[in-house]
């Protein structure tokens, strides 16, 4: 079933006459066009988002973004309700199915939901409002200028006459779509910029929110898969005699899934309950063919990275001036290495996917961040016309980048086809933890010279896997994200600077992890800046300020100083700071540490200041930053993925230790007020935390931490 407007109306339970307005982007890079949805259907364009108002006044938005915890469910209705002038609780939101042709890039990643669509959505909503006002004015035969909209009604100011939107939808549908409607000013907002409760919360307090794992369809069987523990390789042979004896086990089949440009093979046990499938998986005996790739261990990976950084120059990402010459001649220079680990996304909801393969179509349900990619990929891989691949998104129990990937829906589809029944593949926590793809671990070599209180030379080389290579990126080009996280205005003041990428490969599949390269770069660059500040004998925030000649950043630093009491701190009291930028938002953090009576290191407080420009819901932003800091705390002080003989070592939470409630310090979050373009919210809070923490530890103890993760108990 394709989601035509008519079908949509059926699905969403709307009946009778409906006023439907939507926008579409004619070509990449062109401005959005707003049209009536019925017209769009006639001339064959597909909408990016639609607003529908029915005769009862009910408003439904059709959105094409996934909800994985970052509050899309709430941000989109809040924007629409503002310009449409309706109460927030009258706005419902329905998610689109995956279809890139229709909705453009649907991936929920790069903190892009609000960033990418807000102007179009505001415009769309304001246009609908103007059409409803116009319809009312025409009905009453009064001047449009004397009418205004409020709370789902149009009101004629002089007479007090009032009409519900529902009464106006028929007439509004007949009007021409006006151009260039005027949007509200920030000072006129009633909803945007105010803390608002999320609409999905109630579903998440009584167990009714349907996550991928909760999806059930008639006749569905459960599948558990034994996959190659070395992240690659093939099934040589398998013995399923014990597995087949387990009551409830129906099929055992060889399966596979695409992992970038390779395939991962496995053996699937399909049963009538999850439990039977899991027992069957345990009973399998599989012999793997692990030839043709290296079986690396963590020590070896980092040894090679360090050697490469000592002996090689890399591909140039950025070069200005001649830092190498200054470094060579300087009487004193810093030359240090920073090391960051591989990390696992560890979504609370392990991967899973329901697939139902039928001769004429394939339907998929799951916690999916990028439905359009899934549709595209599976259509090609399984040779099914793309319109016959239907991808449904459920709630996501966490995503962090991992669920923007096609392997698990592909595997589910292959198994469903093989056994001829609808199936749900469930990944155990152990599968989820040991199968990758992971955030790549990266080593940085940082060299620098300070002269007269300023950075006179700055040279960073990094060696680590380039996630774009897995997606066919060019290998002779430097990592495009080599400085992601580092504030760009530094490039204006550091005249002698070079950033290089020393190519580094392993057979370990890698991909994005929340805030991507900023999550590792931030630690190296911002720790190194701190070292340079110390070398220059300067206050670390003053030192940054002197190298950042931009008003917005200076205001951010003012705020950081202000809220954290930075200027009143005593020498070596345990304060550290870092500022990073990614996805068009900047976050500065100050961390305060101390030692407890028994000598243990403790985080007393975290202050975070976010500058994300124009924003919708401060409460969502605060929640995202809190969560980002907790995630960063785990990655800095708790867990890492290590490999032994090519196999990931930690299999579950008893050794891959995530932060718990007992680990969480007080966190205060502040948001800068300005009208700059909206930046991302879900990821930018993460990168600054680790360096702010280790810089604070240096301030307190004089010990410089250059390798993550580290153990707070033993510093």
């Amino acid at each position, binding site marked *: 079933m394709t989601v035509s407007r008519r079908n949509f109306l059926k699905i969403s339970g709307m009946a009778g006459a409906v006023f439907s307005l939507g926008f579409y982007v004619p070509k990449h890079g062109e401005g959005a066009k707003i049209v009536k949805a019925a017209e769009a259907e006639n001339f064959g364009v597909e909408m990016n988002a639609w607003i529908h108002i029915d005769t009862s006044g009910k408003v439904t938005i059709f959105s094409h973004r996934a909800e994985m915890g970052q509050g899309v469910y709430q941000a989109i209705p809040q924007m629409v309700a503002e310009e449409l002038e309706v109460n927030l609780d009258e706005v419902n939101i329905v998610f689109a199915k995956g279809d890139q042709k229709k909705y453009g890039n649907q991936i929920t990643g790069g903190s892009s939901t609000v960033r990418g669509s807000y102007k179009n959505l505001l415009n769309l909503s304001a246009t609908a409002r103007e059409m409803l006002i116009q319809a009312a004015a025409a009905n009453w035969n009064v001047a449009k200028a004397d009418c205004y909209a409020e709370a789902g009604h149009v009101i004629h100011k002089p007479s007090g006459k009032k009409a519900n939107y529902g009464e106006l939808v028929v007439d509004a549908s007949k009007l021409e779509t006006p151009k260039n409607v005027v949007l509200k000013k920030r000072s006129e907002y009633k909803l945007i910029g105010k803390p608002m409760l999320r609409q999905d*919360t109630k579903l998440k*307090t009584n167990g009714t929110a349907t996550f991928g794992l909760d999806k059930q369809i008639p006749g569905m069987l459960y599948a558990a898969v034994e996959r190659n523990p070395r992240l690659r390789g093939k099934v040589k042979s398998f013995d399923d005699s014990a597995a087949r004896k387990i009551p409830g086990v129906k099929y055992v089949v060889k399966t596979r899934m695409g992992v970038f440009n390779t395939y991962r093979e496995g053996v699937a046990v399909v049963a009538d309950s999850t439990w039977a499938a899991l027992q069957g998986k345990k009973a399998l005996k599989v012999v793997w063919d692990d030839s043709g790739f290296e079986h690396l261990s963590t020590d070896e990976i980092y040894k090679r990275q360090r050697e490469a950084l000592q002996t090689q120059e890399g591909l140039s990402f950025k070069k200005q001036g001649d830092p190498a010459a200054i470094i060579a001649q300087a009487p004193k220079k810093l030359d240090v290495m920073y090391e960051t680990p591989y990390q696992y996304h560890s979504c609370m909801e*392990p991967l899973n996917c329901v697939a139902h393969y039928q001769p004429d179509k394939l339907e998929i349900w799951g916690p999916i961040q990028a439905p359009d990619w899934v549709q595209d990929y599976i259509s090609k891989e399984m040779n099914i016309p793309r319109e016959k691949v239907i991808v449904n998104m459920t709630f996501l129990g966490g995503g962090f980048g991992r669920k923007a990937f096609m392997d698990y829906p592909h595997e589910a589809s292959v198994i469903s086809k093989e056994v001829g029944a609808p199936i749900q593949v469930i990944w155990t926590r152990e599968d989820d933890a040991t199968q990758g793809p992971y955030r790549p671990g990266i080593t940085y070599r940082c060299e620098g010279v300070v002269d007269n209180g300023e950075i006179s030379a700055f040279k960073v080389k990094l060696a680590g896997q380039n996630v774009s290579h897995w997606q066919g990126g060019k290998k002779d080009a430097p990592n495009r994200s080599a400085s992601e996280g580092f504030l760009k205005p530094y490039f204006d003041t550091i005249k002698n600077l070079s950033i290089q990428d020393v190519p580094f490969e392993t057979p370990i599949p890698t991909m994005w992890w929340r805030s991507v390269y900023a999550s590792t770069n931030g630690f190296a660059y911002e720790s190194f800046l701190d070292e340079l500040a110390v070398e220059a004998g300067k206050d670390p925030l003053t030192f940054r300020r002197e190298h950042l000649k931009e008003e917005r950043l200076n205001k951010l630093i003012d705020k950081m100083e202000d809220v954290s009491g930075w200027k009143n701190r005593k020498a070596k009291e345990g304060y550290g700071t870092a500022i990073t930028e990614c996805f068009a938002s900047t976050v500065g953090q100050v961390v305060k540490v101390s030692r407890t009576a028994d000598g243990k290191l403790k985080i007393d407080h975290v202050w975070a200041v976010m500058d994300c420009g124009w924003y919708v819901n401060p409460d969502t932003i605060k929640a995202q930053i809190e969560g980002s800091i*907790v995630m960063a705390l785990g990655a800095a002080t708790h867990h890492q993925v290590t490999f032994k003989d090519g196999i990931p070592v930690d299999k579950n939470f008893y050794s891959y230790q995530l932060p718990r*409630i007992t680990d969480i310090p007080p966190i205060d979050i502040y948001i800068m007020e300005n009208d700059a373009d909206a930046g991302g919210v879900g990821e930018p809070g993460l990168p600054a935390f680790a360096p702010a923490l280790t810089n604070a530890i240096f301030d307190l103890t004089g010990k410089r931490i250059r390798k993550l993760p580290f153990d707070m108990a033993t510093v």
Partner: protein
Amino acid sequence: MAIIKCNINGREQSLDVDPQMPLLWAIRDVVGLKGTKYGCGVAQCGACTVHLNGEAVRSCVTKVSRISGQKVVTIEGLSANNDHPVQRAWQEIDVPQCGYCHSGQIMSAAVLLRENPNPTDEDIDTAMAGNICRCGTYLRIRKAIHLAAGMDRKVGRNE
């Protein structure tokens, strides 16, 4: 297979299952209540927390045979209208992000508050340390438990 008779959310059930099956999968796959979540399967994360005769247990490591003749309450049965004080506090503070861990968080918090109606931060940390939240909603969990502690507690049905 064996017949296990028990009471789940106030309803008598008779489940025809492998007695070794963890309660988690019996609740989810056999009874069809999907609110109780799988997170680790080894009593490390608390996503699967339910009440067994009023005590918080990890259903992923509780064999279904153990609930024979016993009373189980899942998140779906905690209150009639999503209005147990813990649920109301969770809603008021907008605690969940992805929400996946919160069935378990709420079930743990409900037991904590029954036993300790006015917990300190330390009491909360101790009681909730078995529940992981990957989205990092811990500060709000603490705040919401304090809020719930101050609420009228007459509402919960199966507590």
